């Protein structure tokens, strides 16, 4: 039983990183203001939202399965408050922090219309902290930390986010020159 939890935690952990990568890359890419991957812009935005909800689901299973895993030795406290864990407190804490930010990001986004544009945008920039935290946590925390396949997946995630940033900067630089508009 405990082995099953351990497998579940690792599987959902890696899946969460991949999903968060998709969310962040599409969030950034759509800011470039032109259709990506031949999808209409609202489609990219829709996948951005749906993938983020899916990521919340996977992160939840990841956290709950670790909570019941005796080897991870997590207290309820450690799921919300970072850096107090018994086992690898530093790396686990990065994951906890990423979860806190994820909750803030998705919570404020679901209430976007009630929050107003400015407050929502400011909280949404937390994404630029959330993803690197999740990324570092994935590379440093788990039983698979040094495994070649995990490094490959993480490398692909990094490439995806860097590509999205590059694409956005390249188009917005051009738009700025053309219109003097810095959006």
């Amino acid at each position, binding site marked *: 039983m405990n082995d099953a939890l351990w497998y579940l935690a690792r599987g959902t952990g890696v899946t969460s990183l991949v999903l968060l990568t998709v969310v962040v890359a599409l969030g950034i890419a759509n800011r470039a203001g032109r259709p990506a991957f031949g999808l209409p*812009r*609202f489609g990219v*935005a829709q996948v951005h939202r749906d993938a983020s909800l899916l990521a919340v689901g996977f992160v939840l299973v990841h956290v709950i399965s670790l909570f019941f895993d005796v080897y991870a030795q997590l207290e309820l406290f450690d799921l919300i408050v970072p850096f107090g864990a018994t086992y690898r407190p530093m790396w686990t804490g990065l994951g906890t922090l990423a979860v806190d930010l994820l909750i803030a990001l998705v919570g404020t986004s679901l209430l976007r*219309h009630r929050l107003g*544009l400015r407050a929502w945008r400011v909280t949404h920039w937390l994404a630029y902290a959330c993803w690197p935290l999740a990324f570092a946590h994935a590379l440093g925390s788990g039983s698979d930390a040094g495994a070649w396949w995990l490094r490959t997946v993480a490398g692909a995630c990094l490439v995806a986010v860097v590509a999205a940033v590059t694409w956005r900067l390249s188009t917005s630089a051009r738009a700025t020159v053309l219109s003097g508009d810095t*959006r």
Partner: protein
Amino acid sequence: MTRLHVDWTACQGRGHCTELLPELLAPDEWGYPRSTDDTKEPAVPVALLPHARRAVRHCPRLALHLVGP
């Protein structure tokens, strides 16, 4: 009749609304939404209300609003 209102100070012509509601909004040459019937605040037929609400939810700038009953 419910009408669509665009807050022009917020809108940046990102074009999500013209993709989601082509019956009522078409992009001008800069990508800003222009009503297809050339009224300032186009009326939303009941059949299009769900689509209009979706466009409102989607606007990245929260610039699109439904006004009136």
